[in-house]
């Protein structure tokens, strides 16, 4: 069921926003945009137009200034994504360690292609470019952390762990 989320930071989150703004010179609160968008994405899951407009108002800048930035950087999700996003690096050093096979295997296991989300909304598969883990390839980012030295068995275990987390938390 589609849930309507109120786009509004909590008091605590607003305090965090003010702390971020305070890092920059007086009147340069726009500088806080990237960190505040990260926070907004963490709280609301993705950056809807409504969310971006809300951030613009908070930082007293034009909405277009937020759209420009949100569309430039790859980490901002401009549409909803799964609860777990698998971002598999495919650049040279990972490619020679078999990242193509890992991408194909995850796609097969989850029955989705890169860029897609599973029907249950649990997983999104994405391909990524070098994530700075080339010596520990193949690898992927899942949320805040890296999963490195991937094998098919490891992928299975990660998928199982995610599913398990969900059933425990619900």
């Amino acid at each position: 069921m589609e849930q309507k989320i109120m786009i509004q930071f909590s008091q605590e989150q607003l305090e965090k926003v003010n702390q971020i703004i305070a890092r920059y010179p007086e009147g340069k609160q726009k500088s806080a945009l990237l960190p505040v968008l990260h926070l907004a994405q963490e709280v609301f899951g993705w950056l809807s137009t409504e969310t971006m407009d809300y951030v613009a108002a908070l930082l007293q800048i034009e909405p277009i200034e937020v759209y420009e930035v949100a569309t430039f950087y790859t980490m901002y999700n401009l549409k909803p994504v799964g609860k777990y996003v698998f971002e598999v690096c495919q650049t040279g050093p990972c490619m020679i360690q078999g990242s193509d096979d890992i991408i194909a295997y995850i796609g097969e296991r989850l029955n989705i292609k890169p860029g897609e989300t599973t029907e249950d909304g649990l997983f999104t598969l994405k391909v990524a470019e070098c994530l700075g883990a080339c010596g520990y390839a193949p690898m992927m980012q899942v949320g805040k952390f890296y999963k490195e030295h991937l094998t098919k068995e490891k992928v299975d275990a990660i998928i199982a762990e995610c599913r398990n987390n969900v059933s425990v938390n619900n």
Partner: protein
Amino acid sequence: MSSQKLLLENAHIEGIRYYDVYRKNGGYRSVEKALKMAPDEVVEEVKKSGLRGRGGAGFPTGMKWSFIAKPEGVPRHLVCNADESEPGTFKDRYLMEFLPHLLIEGLIVSSYALGSNVTYIYIRGEYAWIPDILEQAIAEAKANGFLGKNILNSGFDCEIYVQRGAGAYICGEETALIESLEGKRGNPRIKPPFPAVKGAWDRPTVVNNVETLAAVVPIINIGGEEYAKIGVGRSTGTKLISACGNINKPGVYEIDMTISVEEFIYSDEWCGGIKSGKRLKACIPGGSSVPILPANLLLKTAKGESRIMNYESLSDGGFATGTMMGSGGFIVLDEDQCVVKHTYTLARFYRHESCGQCSPCREGTGWMEKLLLRLDQGQGKLSDIDLLWDIQSKIEGNTICPLGDAAAWPVAAAIRHFRDEFEWHITNAAEAQTRNYGLAHYADPLPVSEPVAV
């Protein structure tokens, strides 16, 4: 032969990530020492050390610092470049994860030298767990009087803030980084004005790499002159190398710049040789942007001398037969790897990361990617190789920022040294889909060039 360690010496001490352990092992001595010196004397030590920027360009750090403008009443800023996104490079991550206090210590000393009361660390957004580590180190340093107001009663105030990027290689370029710090798209600025005059919020700004700023700690501790004695020529001190690809021991290593490339690859102290007993085919020794070399030219220069892991030796022969130290991202390819496919992934990377401001870069990177994919899939024509060459030559030197060059060089070098492998993908297209070209002649000893009589 073992290299002297100046940065990673204590990396394996349990708990070194925390202030107490770090301090007990000699941490923050350089701050105590530097704050008793005049800021210009600190800059002078860094000049004497011969330290060159570790972010890729190798520009002398002390000289860069001496360019910072000092207009009356205008704040200045130091910004630490922790964007680390050049394929093959993962050394800054290692430093920040395991030795966060070393970076913070280097930042305090460098901020003092430059007169930066508010210093920023701009870290790539994907390193999402590292800001917590850095912020804890900052809080600990502050609690112990090494940050904040009137540090060690010197009258110097300093705060350090961490800002995450959000996924854009181009934000590693210093003017794009500044734009991003200001909350904008990462479009590089036209230089001049240089950041040292007009940087973040139009204030004089110095951007330096993580490793560069960490190296300031040993420089102050042992003195610039002592530091300059390590290494050779204009490659002074130690360098972190992140090694990856088909080797037995991928990882981050600190070397003094006197060991040979051969030793680095085959010694058990470093990469431990090629994995599964395979043979070395090619290597990109300084991050994806620097020219790829076949095994024979990698291990020996065209003059037949053994190639050494330093700025001068790696670039010996220019682009015709040499490469570059770059960021120290050392990518090793064994005999089973396909240079065409590897080059294709790099072209895809640069197309993905081009900010799109200049047409030679925006259009050229996309075109190169398409041609390389076609070649890799066995649908290329012989004329595509010349076309690729033509495109890369039209990008190089014709763009606002060096990403254009960085995209052109890997393609140019691959064609320069591996042209027959490219041709084979066309002449033997069907076969190329079932096996790869292999080692061919790429490890054969080079003909010794006779001195030409004039």
